[in-house]
């Protein structure tokens, strides 16, 4: 899996209320969830970010509620993947479960600037931004298997007899 896109930068502790405010959680409509992505901290982001864009954030991205609408909102807004120094744990598992690629990288987070073009290659474990190459740590084998199967349910159905 390889992604190349424009970088949008965010700070530390971007929470799920900011990613998709609860007033839009009375629906699971992809158009609505995509349109209002990041509405309260960056109005218009959900419609402005071009398809394939990459979010680069700081520490504890996705903290707060368990709403799966948060990674779905990012996906529906056209975000190809999210890079952060660290992710809050429920957001992390939700992203893995629904198949939104996420990468933990302090190096990328400190080097990528708003508007840069970032390439992330999960197969080779390499990222390139501003002409500089950065190594990405792979997921643990268990997580890799889930990602390879396309999410938690496909993995579970394949590995569980029922």
């Amino acid at each position, binding site marked *: 899996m390889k992604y190349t896109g424009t970088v949008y930068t965010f700070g530390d*502790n971007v*929470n799920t*209320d*900011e990613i998709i*405010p*609860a*007033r839009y*959680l*009375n*629906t*699971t409509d992809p158009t609505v969830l995509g349109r209002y992505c990041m*509405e*309260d*901290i960056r109005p218009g982001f959900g419609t402005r970010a071009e398809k394939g864009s990459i979010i680069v954030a700081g*520490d*504890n991205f996705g*903290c*707060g*509620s*368990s*709403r*799966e*609408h948060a990674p*779905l909102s990012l996906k529906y807004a056209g975000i190809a993947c999210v890079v952060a120094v*660290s992710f*809050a*744990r*429920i957001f992390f*598992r*939700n992203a893995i*479960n*629904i198949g939104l690629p996420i990468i933990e990288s302090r190096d990328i987070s400190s080097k990528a600037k708003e508007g840069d073009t970032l390439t992330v290659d999960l197969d080779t474990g390499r990222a390139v931004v501003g002409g500089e190459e950065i190594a990405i740590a792979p997921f*643990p084998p*268990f997580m890799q298997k*889930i990602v390879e199967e396309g*999410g*938690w*349910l496909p993995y*579970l*159905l394949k590995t*569980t007899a*029922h």
Partner: protein
Amino acid sequence: MTLTEKILAKKAGVKSLTPQEFIEIEPDLALSNDITAPITIDEFEKAGGKNVRCPERVFMIPDHFTPNKDILSAEHYRKLKDFAAKHAGVRFFEQGEVGVEHALLPEMGAIRPGMVVIGADSHTCTYGALGAFSTGVGSTDVAGFLLTGKAWLKVPPTVKAVFTGVMGEWMSGKDLILLLIGKIGVSGAQYRAIEFSGPVIDALSVEGRMTMANMAIEAGGKNGVFVPDTKVAEYLKGRTKEKGDYLAPDADAVYERTVTIDVTGLTPVVACPHLPENVKPARDIMNVRIDQVVIGSCTNGRIEDMRVAAKILKGRKVDPNLRCLVLPATPKIYRQALDEGLFQVFLDAHAVISPPTCGPCLGGHMGILAHGERCVSTTNRNFVGRMGHRESEIYLASPAVAAASAVAGRITDPSELMK
């Protein structure tokens, strides 16, 4: 092993576990609500799900946007109701029976020591107060449980939080957990278990412990857990006939870190906008004018919280320039507050009493903030836009601080009002 490792090892059927191991387990209970269950149901059906694997372990609790705030919410509500009707055994609660999920399940005896609980709601960590391992997951995780009865977990390292010293008169479990979050930060226990202990914890009520476990997530925690004791056994009497598994950490348990807080001389605190870690003594910010007070939620909507609020509001009136909303978290708490005469106090004080709902906590309904408004709230998050307009502000506090602030019209330390 720590308490969390012990509970998980027993459930996984292994002698021991170490942090960072991945395990597939069969949880004892899985819950979801009117926001998260619709995705669970869609994913279950998309994956070809016909029968729910363990329906008697599944709770779908419509508490967030209920009583239904609009047509879309009403459709979600009906989706849960129809699903429960189709899959016998799945528990759904009608209005009049339903309460805020994390107050309702312990109250009805559904949670016991030693259980492993997953919930598509981040505050599922509340049940650690009863010596259970419980953690928030996503809708798809619960869909996986409906299909196979399984879930995946990574064994968390444990942070030990020890509380020592003497509690001041108006100090509460809410102040203790805010003090901890203020000390370690909103990612201070990221991916970790928090095991609470110390003489202050031993003396704290089960409800006070629920308030603390509830906000483990606000420090990034996977779960918050207390060693179940006689207080837990007492709490469960009359709620369940099941015995529960009263586990305790080993003497040689390995903790990643120990944080000790001596509460002697400390006074009630407030978490200022826009992160739960921005903790200050209430008495240091008493000039902040407010427009709304909320007393309720899965954090602080239980009967002890109602009693503390009533103790302060008795014989007083809330400031005429603000609204004070009281939300007993379940119908049982509602009735108890009524029977104890607390509603008389609230009504005399000109507070508004709401039916049980999560409503205002997440900016759903029943108390939304306008541009520039400030709220003192006993809830759990003060993020940008959480309770309404993105330029509104939330100050998190205990029921005592909230009630005192409602009377004063500004943030107030209860001891100032009650002296």
